[in-house]
């Protein structure tokens, strides 16, 4: 199952990267969302999947899934949420001030 999930995460990454290479800002932002999903899936997969109970202590259960990756993912989810929101507003403001949302028109020159 870990291999399947690795492939899935890789697929999410690939799709995310492809979007990142596009010209339209919105698509790029969508790409970052896919990338974070991919990353989180990778982290989860790197703990062992499906071995043991959810990591909530219960009497009589000794085997739990690896809690550490879950904790790391939680931190990471919150952080990516912050960054994504910032990026979305920034995308909007960039569009507003530069009058375009196409990256190839957002190159700039040396002399300004």
């Amino acid at each position, binding site marked *: 199952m870990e291999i399947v999930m690795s492939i899935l995460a890789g697929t999410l990454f690939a*799709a995310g990267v492809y979007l990142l290479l596009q010209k339209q800002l919105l698509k790029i932002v969508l790409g970052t969302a896919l990338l974070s999903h991919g990353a989180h899936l990778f982290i989860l997969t790197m703990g062992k999947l499906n071995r043991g109970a959810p990591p909530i202590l219960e009497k009589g259960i000794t085997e739990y899934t690896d809690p550490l990756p879950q904790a790391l993912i939680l931190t990471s989810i919150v952080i990516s949420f912050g960054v994504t929101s910032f990026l979305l507003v920034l995308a909007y403001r960039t569009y507003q001030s530069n009058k375009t949302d196409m990256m190839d028109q957002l190159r700039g020159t040396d002399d300004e």
Partner: protein
Amino acid sequence: MLHFYILLPFLAALLIGLSAKKVNRIHTGWLVLPVPAVLFIIFCSKLPVLAKGKIVQSTADWIPSLDIQLSFYLDGLSMLFSLLITGIGSLVVLYSIFYLSRKEQLVHFYVYLLLFMGSMLGVVLSDNVFVLYTFWEFTSISSFLLIGFWFYRERSTYGAQKSMLVTVFGGLSMLGALILLSITAETNSIRMMIANRSDILESDLFIPILLLLLLGAFTKSAQFPFHSWLPDAMEAPTPVSAYLHSATMVKAGLYLVARFSLIFSGTDEFFIIVSGIGLITLCIGSFLASRQTDLKGILAYSTISQLGMIMAMLGFGTGVAILAAIFHIFNHATFKGSLFMIAGIVDHETGTRDIRRLGGLYTFMPISATLAFIGAFSMAGVPLPVFNGFLSKEMFFDSSLKLEQSGGLAGTFAEWIPIFAVLGSIFTFVYSMYLVFGTFLGKQKTDQLEKKPHEAPIGMLLSPIILIIFVIAVGLLPNLINEPLLAPAVAAVTGDLPHTHLAFWHGLNTPFYMSLIVIGVGALLAYTLKRWQPVYNKIPGKFSSDHWYQTMVNGLLKSSKSITEFYMTGSLRLYLSIILVFLVVSTSIFMYYTDGFTISFDDLAPVTWPEVLVGFVMAVAAIATIWMNQRIAAIIVIGVVGYGLSLLFVFFRAPDLALTQLIVETITVALFLLCFAHLPKLKKSDKSKSEKLIDLTIAVSTGALLTIVAIASHSSKSFKSISKYFVDNSYKLGGGDNIVNVILVDFRGLDTLFEIAVLGLAALGIFAMIKYRDKGDMNQ
């Protein structure tokens, strides 16, 4: 004590920099003059010590941990240079008092000059190679500032930049050599390096060390093909040209070669390179001098050629040659110094240095003219016992003839060397005559001058007079300086104290015939100069060293621009693609070479269909986002991936994650919706097929690479996870059942604290961005 001698000019520079603006009544030069004068006297007082074969030394701590110590020593070679630096220094300062108007920025001028003086003393007195290097670079910097003294002139800034680039280039290659020397000989002290010379000579790095070191010397001493900075340095005020660019700084290269002679001299490589470059420089410099029309230009090429001659003698390395070299270093400083000062006087009194507009000045300025004639005849090597230049020139011929006795390559090339020596000297004769005859004799052209010429004030003449006295005195009584000054210097270079008696007349020997040839042919060529001067115009400009320099600098700037513009396109796609390609290629290569990829099926969770199904849907949705050109559709597919992920979290027994992901996904989707409403519609990609293919390749290979590394990582679990501790202690020590929560708030509470900080920052940023909204641009 040596420390204080070096420190004195720096202290004086500091004091003058701070206080001189307040002392308005007298010319700043008068305040500066005591510094070199006192130092000159002090150094003279050490002459008897050196004559006994002793040296003066002192050491102080600077960076003992790196063995970079302020250790200085004064031997014969350093003494010769120290006397030149302080002696010519005094005369130049005296001269400058009359040369530079008080309207100039005198404080700046003298601060730079003192900086130079101190640094130059540092160069010739240092025993530690890195201290030497420090002072060496400072001579380049002070020279840069002095050439750019009239900073508003374009020629000055051009010359300043050029001299800095060329000499710092040499300085850096010298630094490379010094580091290699220091590694090879396991010491930073020059004297210890000399003691360990066999380590250096036997090292595999001998040739690179030699080449790098010589690059430093050749650039500083304006040797071919690096000579072209010196003519451009003539933009500096004339006292500077007389001081730095003829008597002292340009001789630092000679000093370096002489100083390291005890290590390198005697090897074929050293002989070939040093005497070869020296002779080429001698010939090219003297040949090109007669082409110049600016008096200082002639003198600059003359300096180049004379430095080449001395360099060649250092390359010969025989006792005779070294004595001749040392002697000529001294003589050159006297006659060239005076000639520069006279050139400055002519400029000062007539308003031009263009020899085409000068002529017949003898009637107006007889003293200057007489001085110039003596200086020039000495430089030309006219065989009269009053010209010190003749003596050393003849010793040069003599040494060039005595190379057959040396073995190795020196013997092989020996026959050719006197020919070059004579050739260079012929043109030396030509430009010397061209210089003085063109300026002081011939037709008067006073109508072409801005001012009516007249003799310079006595103060200005004083320094050249003193120098010319030296020319004559040494010419008449060379042994006056032989024993106390020259012999110890030669001893420092060769290791043996010479017992040569310097004399004017050695009988009718080959060197004398060589001199006669020089004078005969030289006189003929000088007389017919006007007729053959057009030859110079036939030389294509692209052969000139200045042309090379300009081509290189412009080429550098131009190619920098095109290289940089090639990749700095401002295109995010390009930047990202490069990063990704680098990521994929480098990681794959390393994975391949380290056999990084392993796959094991031992420790895997069984594949169950609900998860696979969800995963499949997610994958399809993720890929589908690429083609979504409807905003609402894009949100739906991105939502499918996000919610799918929470579902996977549920399947994989991560309830907290599932919950958080659910909430975050919902808010994110809402944010997307909000933003989409304000942003333009999604457009169909207008990329070409090949662009799409490139994107696709990069994307797929990135995904594939990460998958491969992930599988390999999972397959090579080698250690027990620290998670066991969390499971065991979550309740016991952390007081909670939910292990993930305990980790977040307790075991790894710091992460959570700063995760909140990130959220806060994001909120702050978003808030600020929204506030700008109505105000528009407010960039300064």
